[in-house]
């Protein structure tokens, strides 16, 4: 049994991207505010899981599992604090997403748009499934898991992710 941490990290770690701290905080806040505010007036946009997409992006680009999981935990806890449920639900889910996304980035070329599409779709599905499992197991909530709906939303989020990631690429510190 081997963990993700046992992979040869230096293989692609030298390609990790740097971002301005203000950019990281600003993008994270915007993603959360989007969930809080924009979805209220455009109901269809409430299915856009921007905090998740941002978590996946930064985790992929940093190529550091620890940085990814800490970022995921932070944005997840922030999202939790503005939700109805106990604090920690989104925190746990996004911690795992950040960790796995960063671990994945050590093995694949995260600059490929097609791969980004697949990864965004996969992590959206993983996020929704894990959240559903936790809600049932830890909180005893009898939530429904509509597979078709999650798959469709996963595709939509993945498409948005490709364009969002292209925009975020421009905010990287170059040189």
């Amino acid at each position, binding site marked *: 049994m081997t963990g993700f*941490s046992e992979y040869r990290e230096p293989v692609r770690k030298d390609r990790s991207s740097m971002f301005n701290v203000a950019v990281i905080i600003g993008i994270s806040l915007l993603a959360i505010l989007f969930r809080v505010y924009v979805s209220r007036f455009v109901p269809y946009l409430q299915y856009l899981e921007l905090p998740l997409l941002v978590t996946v992006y930064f985790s992929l680009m940093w190529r550091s599992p620890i940085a990814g*999981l800490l970022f995921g935990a932070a944005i997840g806890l922030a999202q939790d604090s503005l939700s109805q449920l106990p604090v920690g639900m989104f925190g746990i889910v996004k911690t795992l997403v950040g960790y796995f996304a960063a671990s994945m980035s050590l093995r694949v070329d995260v600059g490929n748009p097609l791969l980004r599409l697949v990864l965004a779709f996969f992590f959206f599905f993983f996020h929704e499934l894990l959240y559903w499992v936790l809600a049932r197991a830890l909180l005893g909530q009898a939530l429904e898991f509509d597979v078709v709906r999650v798959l469709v939303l996963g595709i939509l989020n993945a498409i948005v992710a490709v364009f969002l990631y292209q925009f975020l690429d421009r905010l990287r510190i170059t040189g």
Partner: protein
Amino acid sequence: MESFLNRYRNLSVLVAAILAQLVLLAYQVKTNNDVRLIRVWSVGAVTPLARWIEKGRSGVSHFFSDYFVLLEVREENRRMKAELDRIKMDNQYLRAELSTANRAESLAIFQKHSPSKTVAAHIIGNTTGTGAKVVIIDRGSNSGIQPGMAVITPDGIAGKVTKVFAVSSFILLVTDQTFAGGVISQNNRVHGTFKGLGYEGAGKIEHIQNEQKVDQGEWFYTSGDDRIFPKGLPVGEVTTVHQGKTEKEIYVSLSGFKNGLEEVLIIVEGVHVPIPDAPVTNQSVHLLAPPPADAGGISPAVQPLQTGPLSTDADRIKERWRKLGEQEHHIYGERGNGAPNYNTPAKAEAKPDKQ
């Protein structure tokens, strides 16, 4: 041990982070307490921002919606001068202000007539939960809001307060899947439990046996059993009724969301009211005032009688001519008899006047 942690450093941090959050979750679930500090920080940071954005959006939205309405008028009057445009723009700003005032006024009218004591609030945002129907309002403990208070609109119930902060609160909407409340049907007084379906505009009524009678189109009202909503508030109209295995499957269209959800009322002191007998009507019907006792301009002789054999004007004229014919010994329809003098007052008509 140290070498083990170094070797599995990433995994160790992951396990630590997950465990810490699990403990946090377990503490909240076990003690039913909230991690108040984190929430207060987050909500405190977001609320002012959301409030400013909402004010800006509301102002801009009303301004432009009214302006574009006017643009159509302006197309018909292309020769209007630039000065007039500027004045119109100023006018639109005032209209936007008035529109907001009108909404607030309708809410205030409802507040005035409602027996319960309420506080008006504005919805400033959604919460971040997946699929949860929870919104944030701009009133909190400073306005006397407490967790568990009922939230309504002039059209019906809207939700309940779940978390309260200084200047904002979380409202669990009735459309949320976890929402439940006691209801009673209008005609047959059948008690049930309302539950949200997770999408807007509809809900279902549970715990009503197949033997109990509920009709399509019947209204459900709050029963007051849940100790949240006062009795007698409209919940919704039954759209579908099916027989289930043991309980009926009843779906209702919610009345509280008919006109959108921008402003709500929080019931600070609820008063139970009886369930109305008449069905809720959405359109006010204009009724004319009853006619005056004296129908001026029409002589009593030709006023329609409501009783007796002569019930119409035609009957009355026919009777008058018959008496006129008898008086002048004229037989109607007989040739060579000429026509009677229709201007001669009939004796029979004169009698009542003399008495």
